[in-house]
């Protein structure tokens, strides 16, 4: 992997690498509130069948995961655990924020105990709106994230440059 570290990745190799990464996303399910049930319906039910998109929803721990779906209300008491588990995930890692609560606080925008947006704690790649979002919406979010991964230059990511999606 000397090529990546030196910052020179041939284009075809990047493309090949990205196709592989795109269709083998191991997703860690972070179920917090109502959205957890819709996430369970997306990942666990035969009707929506998320595995046809190359998403595998059964990692045993965050250390094996590429993607985490933060679904539900993030409270101030929960916040340190979220940061800690995010830090346990190996790079490159992606975050989908599912539902209004995780996006911005949602119906609890004036609550004293709710963190208004998980993006205050960890960087978020895709926001899925809705209260709760339908399973189809979460699938759309996953497809968007896959497009983003496809257009990503892994060596640029290692250098810390922002991702530009065409």
């Amino acid at each position: 992997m000397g090529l990546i570290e030196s910052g020179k990745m041939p284009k075809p190799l990047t493309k090949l690498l990205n196709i592989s990464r795109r269709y083998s996303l191991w997703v860690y399910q972070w179920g917090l509130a109502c959205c957890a049930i819709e996430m369970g319906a997306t990942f666990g039910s035969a009707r929506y069948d998320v595995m046809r998109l190359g998403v595998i929803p059964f990692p045993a721990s965050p250390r094996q995961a590429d993607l985490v779906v933060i679904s539900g209300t993030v409270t101030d008491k929960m916040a340190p655990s979220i940061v800690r588990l995010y830090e346990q995930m190996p790079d490159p890692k992606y975050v989908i924020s599912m539902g209004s609560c995780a996006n911005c606080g949602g119906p609890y925008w004036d609550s004293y105990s709710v963190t208004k947006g998980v993006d205050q704690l960890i960087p978020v790649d895709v926001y899925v709106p809705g209260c709760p979002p339908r399973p189809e919406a979460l699938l759309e979010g996953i497809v968007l994230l896959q497009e983003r991964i496809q257009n990503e230059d892994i060596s640029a990511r290692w250098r810390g440059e922002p991702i530009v999606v065409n």
Partner: protein
Amino acid sequence: MNTTTREQMAYIAGQAADARLNVELETEGMTLNIGPQHPATHGTLRIVARLDGEQVIEAEPIMGYMHRGYEKLTEVRTYPQVTTLINRIDWLGSFANEVPFILAAEQLMEIEAPPRAQWIRTILFELSRIANISLFLGDMGVQLGALTPVFYAFRDREFVLNQIEAVTGGRFHPNFDRIGGLKDDLPAGWIEETREVLGKMRTFCDELEDLLMGNEIFEVRTRGIGIIPADVGLSYGLSGANIRASGVDWDIRRDNPCGLVYDELDWQVWTHPDGDSFARYWVRLQEVREATKMIEQLFDGLPSGPIMAKVPRIIKVPAGEAYVETENPLGAMGYYIVSQGELVPFRVKIRSASFNNLSIAPWLLKGVYVPDIITILASLYFILGDIDR
């Protein structure tokens, strides 16, 4: 195992662990931290268990990871806005959360919903019970290592959610109940579709009975595990299927059907004398079956007429206090509203079932083995939003 021997066992195990701490080169008591994010805890519950080998000496649930401040938020929301919020307390049976609040507000305003609205309310109430408990029926299997039931549960639950969505427009959070009636009438052809779905749910119950109840592993892991004697359960304030599984014949639907039409139906309250995890599962399975029968009876007797009473455009609830309790899927749920005649409630106290159902956990987990923690917590069936609010 009765109460005395259980307490004696826990005492002996505790003494043994404490004594061992003083002896060199011996194993110490271990502290096991379950959660706050663990699939077996239905959300973000954390349990700190002190172990002696495989045995639990004491277990303490730590709550508040899902505390959203409902009771404070209701003080700055108008009455119609509150229903939007309280949908999300018990997110699996959302419609059932609205009903007691609306009934309490109606009691203060001294208005009554028209008969048709009351019947449709009862139909949706029971549908949300099916949607809620059917997930439990699959989830209990998953926690004991049987993966198939949860896939069946998610498959068949979709049908019920579709029917709820067809009426209310929301899969999860209908926000359909209004003070004085309902937002809308049933759509055309809905009743026939729902009858088909009810048939599917009965098949689902039969399937689970075949899959799980006849399963030897399931029986071994649930029978005699987590026994709640009736008097202990009552003293901890247990309600719903948890207390009915201990042989207490108490159901608010039958005993005090305030505002809902349960007294016009022919149905039965299911109880089980054992009080163990298996009994709790069995009672809930029968309740789903009973709910499908109740909904069919409700369809047969559905009266015609308006669905909304005469209600002022701007709702101001007169000063006073009211408490209404209903039998929600998880147990007794009630709202105590204090009004001072303004647009917003002065104070709302929410009595949710799961908080009391979980409060027995430290007593129940004393002296059990580690795998049984999962069985007991799964069979108590709580939802974290309902505990922390």
